[in-house]
Protein backbone atom coordinates (compact mmCIF):
# COMPACT_ATOMS: atom_id res chain seq x y z
CA UNK A 1 0.00 0.00 0.00
CA UNK A 2 1.26 3.43 -0.77
CA UNK A 3 0.87 4.76 2.72
CA UNK A 4 4.60 4.79 3.08
CA UNK A 5 4.75 8.00 1.09
CA UNK A 6 4.26 9.97 4.28
CA UNK A 7 7.12 11.68 5.96
CA UNK A 8 6.25 9.82 9.13
CA UNK A 9 7.25 6.47 7.74
CA UNK A 10 10.23 4.85 9.37
CA UNK A 11 10.95 1.38 10.47
CA UNK A 12 9.70 1.70 14.00
CA UNK A 13 6.32 0.23 14.82
CA UNK A 14 3.46 2.66 14.39
CA UNK A 15 2.23 1.89 17.86
CA UNK A 16 5.15 3.74 19.41
CA UNK A 17 4.65 6.86 17.36
CA UNK A 18 3.07 10.02 18.62
CA UNK A 19 1.50 12.68 16.51
CA UNK A 20 3.13 15.66 18.22
CA UNK A 21 6.20 17.53 16.99
CA UNK A 22 8.01 20.54 18.44
CA UNK A 23 6.07 22.67 15.99
CA UNK A 24 2.68 21.47 17.11
CA UNK A 25 3.68 21.77 20.72
CA UNK A 26 4.70 25.38 20.12
CA UNK A 27 1.48 25.92 18.27
CA UNK A 28 -0.41 24.50 21.21
CA UNK A 29 1.12 27.05 23.55
CA UNK A 30 0.24 29.89 21.19
CA UNK A 31 -3.33 28.61 20.96
CA UNK A 32 -3.66 28.47 24.74
CA UNK A 33 -2.42 32.02 25.05
CA UNK A 34 -4.68 33.23 22.26
CA UNK A 35 -7.64 31.46 23.78
CA UNK A 36 -7.05 33.11 27.13
CA UNK A 37 -6.86 36.50 25.46
CA UNK A 38 -10.01 35.76 23.48
CA UNK A 39 -11.92 34.80 26.58
CA UNK A 40 -10.79 37.93 28.40
CA UNK A 41 -11.59 40.21 25.49
CA UNK A 42 -14.76 38.44 24.49
CA UNK A 43 -16.34 38.08 27.89
CA UNK A 44 -15.01 41.01 29.91
CA UNK A 45 -13.51 43.73 27.77
CA UNK A 46 -15.51 44.05 24.57
CA UNK A 47 -18.71 46.08 24.81
CA UNK A 48 -22.22 44.75 24.75
CA UNK A 49 -24.15 45.20 21.54
CA UNK A 50 -26.80 47.87 21.10
CA UNK A 51 -29.41 45.39 19.98
CA UNK A 52 -28.14 42.08 21.19
CA UNK A 53 -26.88 43.04 24.62
CA UNK A 54 -24.49 40.73 26.38
CA UNK A 55 -25.47 37.79 24.25
CA UNK A 56 -23.38 39.15 21.42
CA UNK A 57 -20.41 37.54 23.10
CA UNK A 58 -21.55 34.21 21.71
CA UNK A 59 -20.58 35.58 18.34
CA UNK A 60 -16.91 35.17 19.11
CA UNK A 61 -17.31 31.42 19.01
CA UNK A 62 -20.25 31.13 16.65
CA UNK A 63 -18.90 33.03 13.68
CA UNK A 64 -15.35 31.67 13.75
CA UNK A 65 -16.83 28.20 14.14
CA UNK A 66 -18.87 28.58 10.99
CA UNK A 67 -16.08 30.13 9.01
CA UNK A 68 -13.54 27.54 10.04
CA UNK A 69 -15.99 24.81 9.13
CA UNK A 70 -16.19 26.38 5.68
CA UNK A 71 -12.41 26.51 5.53
CA UNK A 72 -12.11 22.92 6.64
CA UNK A 73 -14.57 21.72 4.01
CA UNK A 74 -12.82 23.75 1.34
CA UNK A 75 -9.53 22.17 2.37
CA UNK A 76 -11.22 18.79 2.13
CA UNK A 77 -12.32 19.69 -1.36
CA UNK A 78 -8.92 20.92 -2.46
CA UNK A 79 -7.02 17.96 -1.12
CA UNK A 80 -9.58 15.64 -2.65
CA UNK A 81 -8.94 17.29 -5.99
CA UNK A 82 -5.24 16.90 -5.38
CA UNK A 83 -5.79 13.23 -4.71
CA UNK A 84 -7.83 12.74 -7.84
CA UNK A 85 -5.36 14.51 -10.07
CA UNK A 86 -3.05 11.81 -11.27
CA UNK A 87 0.18 13.74 -10.92
CA UNK A 88 -0.34 14.58 -7.30
CA UNK A 89 -2.06 11.35 -6.32
CA UNK A 90 -1.09 10.38 -2.81
CA UNK A 91 -2.92 9.00 0.15
CA UNK A 92 -1.58 11.90 2.18
CA UNK A 93 -4.08 14.12 0.39
CA UNK A 94 -6.82 11.70 1.19
CA UNK A 95 -5.95 11.70 4.86
CA UNK A 96 -5.80 15.47 4.93
CA UNK A 97 -9.23 15.53 3.33
CA UNK A 98 -10.60 13.11 5.88
CA UNK A 99 -9.00 14.83 8.84
CA UNK A 100 -10.17 18.21 7.68
CA UNK A 101 -13.71 17.00 7.23
CA UNK A 102 -13.74 15.59 10.73
CA UNK A 103 -12.48 18.84 12.19
CA UNK A 104 -14.94 20.72 10.01
CA UNK A 105 -17.83 18.69 11.34
CA UNK A 106 -16.61 19.51 14.82
CA UNK A 107 -16.52 23.25 14.11
CA UNK A 108 -19.85 23.15 12.36
CA UNK A 109 -21.18 21.44 15.45
CA UNK A 110 -19.79 24.23 17.63
CA UNK A 111 -21.42 26.80 15.39
CA UNK A 112 -24.73 24.98 15.45
CA UNK A 113 -24.74 24.65 19.21
CA UNK A 114 -23.66 28.20 19.92
CA UNK A 115 -26.06 29.43 17.25
CA UNK A 116 -28.99 27.70 18.81
CA UNK A 117 -28.03 28.97 22.26
CA UNK A 118 -27.85 32.43 20.81
CA UNK A 119 -31.14 31.89 19.08
CA UNK A 120 -32.71 30.91 22.40
CA UNK A 121 -31.60 34.23 23.82
CA UNK A 122 -32.38 36.59 20.95
CA UNK A 123 -35.18 34.88 19.04
CA UNK A 124 -36.57 33.00 21.99
CA UNK A 125 -36.09 29.60 20.36
CA UNK A 126 -33.38 27.05 19.92
CA UNK A 127 -34.27 26.30 16.38
CA UNK A 128 -36.36 27.74 13.64
CA UNK A 129 -36.79 26.76 10.04
CA UNK A 130 -34.79 29.59 8.74
CA UNK A 131 -32.92 29.08 5.47
CA UNK A 132 -29.48 29.70 6.95
CA UNK A 133 -30.11 27.32 9.79
CA UNK A 134 -31.58 24.66 7.57
CA UNK A 135 -28.90 24.80 4.92
CA UNK A 136 -26.31 24.67 7.68
CA UNK A 137 -27.94 21.55 9.00
CA UNK A 138 -27.86 20.03 5.51
CA UNK A 139 -24.20 20.85 5.16
CA UNK A 140 -23.55 19.21 8.51
CA UNK A 141 -25.43 16.07 7.49
CA UNK A 142 -23.72 15.99 4.11
CA UNK A 143 -20.35 15.75 5.76
CA UNK A 144 -21.61 13.13 8.15
CA UNK A 145 -22.56 11.23 5.01
CA UNK A 146 -19.09 11.87 3.67
CA UNK A 147 -17.56 10.41 6.80
CA UNK A 148 -19.93 7.45 6.54
CA UNK A 149 -18.73 6.77 3.03
CA UNK A 150 -15.13 6.95 4.23
CA UNK A 151 -16.02 4.24 6.69
CA UNK A 152 -17.48 1.91 4.08
CA UNK A 153 -14.42 -0.27 3.94
CA UNK A 154 -12.31 -1.50 1.06
CA UNK A 155 -8.72 -0.65 0.39
CA UNK A 156 -7.25 2.74 1.17
CA UNK A 157 -7.28 3.69 -2.49
CA UNK A 158 -10.93 2.76 -2.82
CA UNK A 159 -11.82 4.78 0.23
CA UNK A 160 -9.85 7.70 -1.10
CA UNK A 161 -11.39 7.69 -4.53
CA UNK A 162 -14.97 7.34 -3.42
CA UNK A 163 -14.75 9.98 -0.76
CA UNK A 164 -12.83 12.40 -2.95
CA UNK A 165 -15.60 12.47 -5.50
CA UNK A 166 -18.12 13.04 -2.77
CA UNK A 167 -16.07 15.83 -1.23
CA UNK A 168 -15.89 17.72 -4.50
CA UNK A 169 -19.66 17.65 -4.75
CA UNK A 170 -20.26 18.46 -1.11
CA UNK A 171 -18.11 21.57 -1.16
CA UNK A 172 -20.55 23.10 -3.62
CA UNK A 173 -23.08 23.41 -0.84
CA UNK A 174 -21.03 26.02 0.96
CA UNK A 175 -22.01 28.89 -1.33
CA UNK A 176 -25.60 27.81 -0.86
CA UNK A 177 -25.26 28.15 2.88
CA UNK A 178 -23.42 31.41 2.63
CA UNK A 179 -25.81 33.06 0.21
CA UNK A 180 -28.91 31.54 1.74
CA UNK A 181 -29.47 34.77 3.66
CA UNK A 182 -29.68 36.67 0.39
CA UNK A 183 -31.61 34.02 -1.50
CA UNK A 184 -34.28 33.75 1.11
CA UNK A 185 -35.33 36.48 3.45
CA UNK A 186 -34.17 35.11 6.72
CA UNK A 187 -34.21 35.83 10.36
CA UNK A 188 -30.54 35.19 10.51
CA UNK A 189 -27.94 37.89 10.35
CA UNK A 190 -26.93 39.05 6.90
CA UNK A 191 -23.24 39.02 6.14
CA UNK A 192 -22.12 41.89 8.33
CA UNK A 193 -18.39 41.45 8.35
CA UNK A 194 -17.51 40.20 4.90
CA UNK A 195 -20.67 41.60 3.38
CA UNK A 196 -20.55 44.06 0.54
CA UNK A 197 -21.60 47.53 1.58
CA UNK A 198 -23.85 46.65 4.44
CA UNK A 199 -24.64 49.47 6.73
CA UNK A 200 -24.08 47.52 9.88
CA UNK A 201 -21.09 48.99 11.56
CA UNK A 202 -19.29 47.14 14.22
CA UNK A 203 -17.55 48.52 17.18
CA UNK A 204 -13.79 48.48 16.66
CA UNK A 205 -13.06 46.34 19.68
CA UNK A 206 -15.82 43.93 18.76
CA UNK A 207 -14.36 43.62 15.32
CA UNK A 208 -10.92 43.05 16.75
CA UNK A 209 -12.19 40.40 19.13
CA UNK A 210 -14.00 38.69 16.33
CA UNK A 211 -10.86 38.61 14.23
CA UNK A 212 -8.89 37.35 17.20
CA UNK A 213 -11.48 34.60 17.51
CA UNK A 214 -11.04 33.73 13.87
CA UNK A 215 -7.26 33.70 14.28
CA UNK A 216 -7.37 31.47 17.34
CA UNK A 217 -9.85 29.12 15.73
CA UNK A 218 -7.67 28.94 12.64
CA UNK A 219 -4.65 27.96 14.68
CA UNK A 220 -6.75 25.44 16.50
CA UNK A 221 -7.90 24.07 13.16
CA UNK A 222 -4.31 23.72 11.97
CA UNK A 223 -3.33 22.01 15.19
CA UNK A 224 -6.21 19.56 15.08
CA UNK A 225 -5.70 18.92 11.39
CA UNK A 226 -2.03 18.09 11.83
CA UNK A 227 -2.68 15.72 14.67
CA UNK A 228 -5.65 14.03 13.12
CA UNK A 229 -3.93 13.68 9.77
CA UNK A 230 -0.98 12.03 11.42
CA UNK A 231 -3.09 9.72 13.49
CA UNK A 232 -4.95 8.72 10.35
CA UNK A 233 -1.58 8.03 8.74
CA UNK A 234 -0.70 5.87 11.71
CA UNK A 235 -4.00 4.03 11.37
CA UNK A 236 -3.21 3.35 7.75
CA UNK A 237 0.29 2.23 8.66
CA UNK A 238 -1.17 -0.05 11.26
CA UNK A 239 -3.37 -1.51 8.55
CA UNK A 240 -0.29 -1.94 6.40
CA UNK A 241 1.74 -3.61 9.07
CA UNK A 242 -1.32 -5.74 9.71
CA UNK A 243 -1.12 -6.61 6.04
CA UNK A 244 2.54 -7.48 6.38
CA UNK A 245 1.75 -9.85 9.20
CA UNK A 246 -1.14 -11.35 7.32
CA UNK A 247 1.07 -11.82 4.27
CA UNK A 248 3.69 -13.61 6.31
CA UNK A 249 1.05 -15.82 7.86
CA UNK A 250 -0.47 -16.64 4.49
CA UNK A 251 2.92 -17.49 3.00
CA UNK A 252 3.66 -19.75 5.93
CA UNK A 253 0.33 -21.42 5.32
CA UNK A 254 1.37 -22.06 1.72
CA UNK A 255 4.65 -23.60 2.94
CA UNK A 256 2.71 -25.80 5.32
CA UNK A 257 0.56 -27.10 2.50
CA UNK A 258 3.55 -27.63 0.26
CA UNK A 259 5.44 -30.03 2.46
Amino acid at each position, binding site marked *: *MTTTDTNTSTNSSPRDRVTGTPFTRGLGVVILAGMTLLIILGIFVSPADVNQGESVRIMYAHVPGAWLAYLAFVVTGISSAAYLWKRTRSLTWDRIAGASAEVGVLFMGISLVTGSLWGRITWGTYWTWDARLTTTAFLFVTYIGYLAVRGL*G*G*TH*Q*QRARRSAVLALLAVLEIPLVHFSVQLWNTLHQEASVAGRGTDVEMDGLMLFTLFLGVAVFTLMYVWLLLHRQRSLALDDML*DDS*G*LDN*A*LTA*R*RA*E*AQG*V*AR
Partner: protein
Amino acid sequence: MSTIAHEPGIDVVIDLVDAVAVLGSFPALAGATLSVCRGEIVLLRGPNGAGKTTLLRLCAGLIPLERGHGQVLGVDLKNDRELVRHRVGVIGHNNGLYADLTVTENVRFWGRTVGATRAEVDAALRRMGLDGRLADLQVSRLSAGQKRRTALAGLVARRAELWLLDEPHAGLDAAGRDELDQVLKMAAAAGATVMVASHELERAAQLATRQVEVVAGQVREIGAP
Protein backbone atom coordinates in the same frame (compact mmCIF):
# COMPACT_ATOMS: atom_id res chain seq x y z
CA MET B 1 -13.73 -18.21 -35.83
CA SER B 2 -11.16 -15.96 -37.40
CA THR B 3 -7.86 -15.15 -35.80
CA ILE B 4 -7.78 -12.45 -33.19
CA ALA B 5 -5.79 -9.34 -33.95
CA HIS B 6 -2.32 -9.76 -32.69
CA GLU B 7 -0.05 -7.06 -31.44
CA PRO B 8 3.39 -8.29 -32.34
CA GLY B 9 5.80 -8.76 -29.50
CA ILE B 10 3.22 -9.35 -26.77
CA ASP B 11 3.08 -13.04 -26.53
CA VAL B 12 3.11 -13.06 -22.77
CA VAL B 13 -0.50 -12.26 -22.09
CA ILE B 14 -0.44 -12.42 -18.31
CA ASP B 15 2.64 -11.58 -16.36
CA LEU B 16 2.37 -11.36 -12.59
CA VAL B 17 5.37 -11.07 -10.29
CA ASP B 18 4.80 -11.30 -6.56
CA ALA B 19 1.33 -9.89 -6.97
CA VAL B 20 -0.58 -9.07 -3.80
CA ALA B 21 -4.30 -8.37 -3.81
CA VAL B 22 -6.23 -7.50 -0.70
CA LEU B 23 -9.89 -8.18 0.07
CA GLY B 24 -11.07 -6.33 3.12
CA SER B 25 -7.80 -6.54 4.97
CA PHE B 26 -6.99 -10.09 3.97
CA PRO B 27 -4.24 -10.81 1.45
CA ALA B 28 -6.24 -13.15 -0.76
CA LEU B 29 -3.32 -13.14 -3.16
CA ALA B 30 -0.09 -13.19 -1.21
CA GLY B 31 2.66 -12.85 -3.76
CA ALA B 32 1.49 -14.70 -6.82
CA THR B 33 3.87 -15.17 -9.73
CA LEU B 34 2.47 -16.43 -12.98
CA SER B 35 3.03 -15.95 -16.65
CA VAL B 36 0.71 -17.13 -19.37
CA CYS B 37 1.38 -17.06 -23.09
CA ARG B 38 -0.98 -16.46 -25.96
CA GLY B 39 -3.00 -19.49 -27.00
CA GLU B 40 -2.67 -21.33 -23.70
CA ILE B 41 -5.60 -22.78 -21.80
CA VAL B 42 -4.56 -22.62 -18.18
CA LEU B 43 -6.44 -24.49 -15.48
CA LEU B 44 -6.38 -22.91 -12.02
CA ARG B 45 -6.91 -25.52 -9.36
CA GLY B 46 -6.61 -25.42 -5.62
CA PRO B 47 -8.63 -25.65 -2.44
CA ASN B 48 -11.52 -23.42 -1.45
CA GLY B 49 -10.40 -19.98 -0.45
CA ALA B 50 -7.01 -20.35 -2.10
CA GLY B 51 -7.43 -17.20 -4.17
CA LYS B 52 -8.49 -18.42 -7.61
CA THR B 53 -11.38 -16.02 -7.95
CA THR B 54 -9.21 -13.21 -6.71
CA LEU B 55 -6.53 -14.03 -9.26
CA LEU B 56 -9.06 -13.96 -12.08
CA ARG B 57 -10.56 -10.69 -10.92
CA LEU B 58 -7.14 -9.16 -10.62
CA CYS B 59 -6.31 -10.12 -14.20
CA ALA B 60 -9.62 -8.68 -15.36
CA GLY B 61 -8.75 -5.32 -13.83
CA LEU B 62 -11.63 -5.54 -11.38
CA ILE B 63 -9.63 -5.23 -8.19
CA PRO B 64 -6.49 -3.22 -7.53
CA LEU B 65 -3.01 -4.66 -7.47
CA GLU B 66 -1.78 -3.79 -4.03
CA ARG B 67 1.88 -4.74 -4.34
CA GLY B 68 4.13 -6.45 -6.84
CA HIS B 69 4.01 -6.19 -10.61
CA GLY B 70 1.30 -7.15 -13.02
CA GLN B 71 0.84 -6.85 -16.75
CA VAL B 72 -2.12 -8.17 -18.69
CA LEU B 73 -2.23 -7.87 -22.47
CA GLY B 74 0.61 -5.42 -22.18
CA VAL B 75 -1.32 -3.16 -19.83
CA ASP B 76 0.15 -2.31 -16.46
CA LEU B 77 -2.32 -3.32 -13.75
CA LYS B 78 -0.95 -0.88 -11.25
CA ASN B 79 -1.78 2.24 -13.19
CA ASP B 80 -4.16 1.49 -16.03
CA ARG B 81 -6.17 -1.50 -15.01
CA GLU B 82 -9.32 -0.05 -16.52
CA LEU B 83 -7.67 -0.25 -19.96
CA VAL B 84 -7.53 -4.01 -19.81
CA ARG B 85 -11.23 -4.38 -19.36
CA HIS B 86 -12.66 -4.15 -22.82
CA ARG B 87 -10.21 -6.74 -24.00
CA VAL B 88 -11.03 -9.50 -21.54
CA GLY B 89 -14.14 -11.60 -21.20
CA VAL B 90 -15.02 -12.55 -17.66
CA ILE B 91 -17.53 -14.86 -16.12
CA GLY B 92 -17.60 -15.03 -12.35
CA HIS B 93 -19.63 -16.97 -9.83
CA ASN B 94 -22.59 -14.76 -10.76
CA ASN B 95 -24.15 -14.66 -14.18
CA GLY B 96 -24.76 -10.93 -14.56
CA LEU B 97 -28.13 -11.33 -16.26
CA TYR B 98 -31.20 -9.12 -16.17
CA ALA B 99 -34.04 -11.26 -14.88
CA ASP B 100 -36.76 -9.27 -16.64
CA LEU B 101 -35.23 -9.51 -20.10
CA THR B 102 -35.41 -12.52 -22.34
CA VAL B 103 -32.47 -14.74 -23.16
CA THR B 104 -32.00 -13.13 -26.57
CA GLU B 105 -32.30 -9.63 -25.18
CA ASN B 106 -29.70 -10.37 -22.55
CA VAL B 107 -27.20 -11.85 -24.94
CA ARG B 108 -27.80 -9.07 -27.43
CA PHE B 109 -27.31 -6.46 -24.73
CA TRP B 110 -24.02 -7.92 -23.63
CA GLY B 111 -22.94 -8.38 -27.20
CA ARG B 112 -23.75 -4.80 -28.12
CA THR B 113 -21.89 -3.31 -25.20
CA VAL B 114 -18.72 -4.59 -26.79
CA GLY B 115 -19.74 -3.92 -30.37
CA ALA B 116 -20.67 -7.42 -31.50
CA THR B 117 -22.84 -7.67 -34.59
CA ARG B 118 -26.26 -9.22 -34.69
CA ALA B 119 -24.93 -12.21 -36.60
CA GLU B 120 -22.35 -12.83 -33.92
CA VAL B 121 -24.99 -12.69 -31.22
CA ASP B 122 -27.15 -15.17 -33.10
CA ALA B 123 -24.20 -17.44 -33.61
CA ALA B 124 -23.43 -17.34 -29.89
CA LEU B 125 -27.02 -18.18 -29.02
CA ARG B 126 -26.95 -21.13 -31.38
CA ARG B 127 -23.62 -22.27 -30.04
CA MET B 128 -24.97 -22.52 -26.50
CA GLY B 129 -28.19 -24.17 -27.60
CA LEU B 130 -30.41 -21.24 -26.77
CA ASP B 131 -32.12 -20.71 -30.10
CA GLY B 132 -35.23 -22.77 -29.54
CA ARG B 133 -38.04 -22.34 -27.03
CA LEU B 134 -35.72 -20.65 -24.59
CA ALA B 135 -34.78 -17.72 -26.85
CA ASP B 136 -37.78 -15.62 -25.90
CA LEU B 137 -38.15 -16.76 -22.32
CA GLN B 138 -37.43 -14.27 -19.54
CA VAL B 139 -34.34 -15.12 -17.59
CA SER B 140 -36.33 -15.24 -14.34
CA ARG B 141 -38.02 -18.34 -15.75
CA LEU B 142 -34.87 -20.26 -16.52
CA SER B 143 -33.33 -23.12 -14.60
CA ALA B 144 -29.90 -22.64 -13.04
CA GLY B 145 -28.10 -24.31 -15.91
CA GLN B 146 -30.04 -22.41 -18.53
CA LYS B 147 -29.00 -19.17 -16.88
CA ARG B 148 -25.39 -20.22 -16.92
CA ARG B 149 -25.69 -21.02 -20.63
CA THR B 150 -27.12 -17.58 -21.28
CA ALA B 151 -24.28 -15.91 -19.46
CA LEU B 152 -21.78 -17.97 -21.43
CA ALA B 153 -23.48 -17.05 -24.69
CA GLY B 154 -23.05 -13.40 -23.78
CA LEU B 155 -19.39 -14.10 -23.27
CA VAL B 156 -19.02 -16.04 -26.49
CA ALA B 157 -20.58 -13.16 -28.40
CA ARG B 158 -17.76 -10.85 -27.39
CA ARG B 159 -14.81 -12.93 -28.54
CA ALA B 160 -12.33 -11.47 -26.12
CA GLU B 161 -8.56 -11.75 -26.37
CA LEU B 162 -8.34 -13.16 -22.89
CA TRP B 163 -11.05 -15.32 -21.37
CA LEU B 164 -11.20 -15.50 -17.60
CA LEU B 165 -13.67 -18.10 -16.41
CA ASP B 166 -14.56 -18.88 -12.82
CA GLU B 167 -16.01 -22.37 -12.58
CA PRO B 168 -17.77 -22.05 -15.91
CA HIS B 169 -18.96 -25.65 -15.90
CA ALA B 170 -20.94 -25.32 -12.70
CA GLY B 171 -24.58 -25.97 -13.46
CA LEU B 172 -24.11 -27.00 -17.08
CA ASP B 173 -25.33 -30.37 -18.22
CA ALA B 174 -23.12 -32.86 -20.05
CA ALA B 175 -23.90 -31.43 -23.48
CA GLY B 176 -23.33 -27.89 -22.29
CA ARG B 177 -19.95 -28.82 -20.91
CA ASP B 178 -18.89 -30.28 -24.21
CA GLU B 179 -20.09 -27.23 -26.11
CA LEU B 180 -18.24 -24.92 -23.78
CA ASP B 181 -15.03 -26.89 -24.03
CA GLN B 182 -15.28 -26.82 -27.77
CA VAL B 183 -15.79 -23.07 -27.80
CA LEU B 184 -12.81 -22.54 -25.56
CA LYS B 185 -10.58 -24.78 -27.63
CA MET B 186 -11.57 -22.98 -30.80
CA ALA B 187 -10.96 -19.60 -29.20
CA ALA B 188 -7.51 -20.69 -28.07
CA ALA B 189 -6.74 -22.08 -31.49
CA ALA B 190 -7.70 -18.72 -32.97
CA GLY B 191 -5.14 -16.98 -30.78
CA ALA B 192 -7.10 -16.14 -27.67
CA THR B 193 -5.87 -17.08 -24.22
CA VAL B 194 -8.02 -18.84 -21.65
CA MET B 195 -7.71 -19.14 -17.90
CA VAL B 196 -10.24 -21.33 -16.11
CA ALA B 197 -10.70 -21.92 -12.40
CA SER B 198 -12.40 -25.20 -11.73
CA HIS B 199 -12.88 -27.91 -9.16
CA GLU B 200 -13.86 -30.53 -11.72
CA LEU B 201 -10.34 -31.67 -12.21
CA GLU B 202 -10.82 -34.61 -14.55
CA ARG B 203 -12.87 -32.65 -17.05
CA ALA B 204 -10.84 -29.48 -16.83
CA ALA B 205 -7.59 -31.38 -17.20
CA GLN B 206 -8.76 -32.66 -20.56
CA LEU B 207 -9.40 -29.11 -21.66
CA ALA B 208 -6.33 -27.39 -20.32
CA THR B 209 -2.94 -27.18 -21.96
CA ARG B 210 -1.39 -26.40 -18.63
CA GLN B 211 -2.32 -26.68 -14.98
CA VAL B 212 -1.40 -24.38 -12.19
CA GLU B 213 -2.17 -24.76 -8.53
CA VAL B 214 -3.23 -21.89 -6.33
CA VAL B 215 -2.51 -22.47 -2.67
CA ALA B 216 -2.91 -19.92 0.10
CA GLY B 217 -2.66 -17.00 -2.26
CA GLN B 218 0.33 -18.28 -4.17
CA VAL B 219 0.72 -19.95 -7.52
CA ARG B 220 2.57 -23.17 -8.09
CA GLU B 221 3.24 -24.84 -11.43
CA ILE B 222 2.15 -28.40 -12.10
CA GLY B 223 3.52 -30.41 -14.99
CA ALA B 224 1.39 -30.68 -18.09
CA PRO B 225 -1.34 -33.30 -17.58
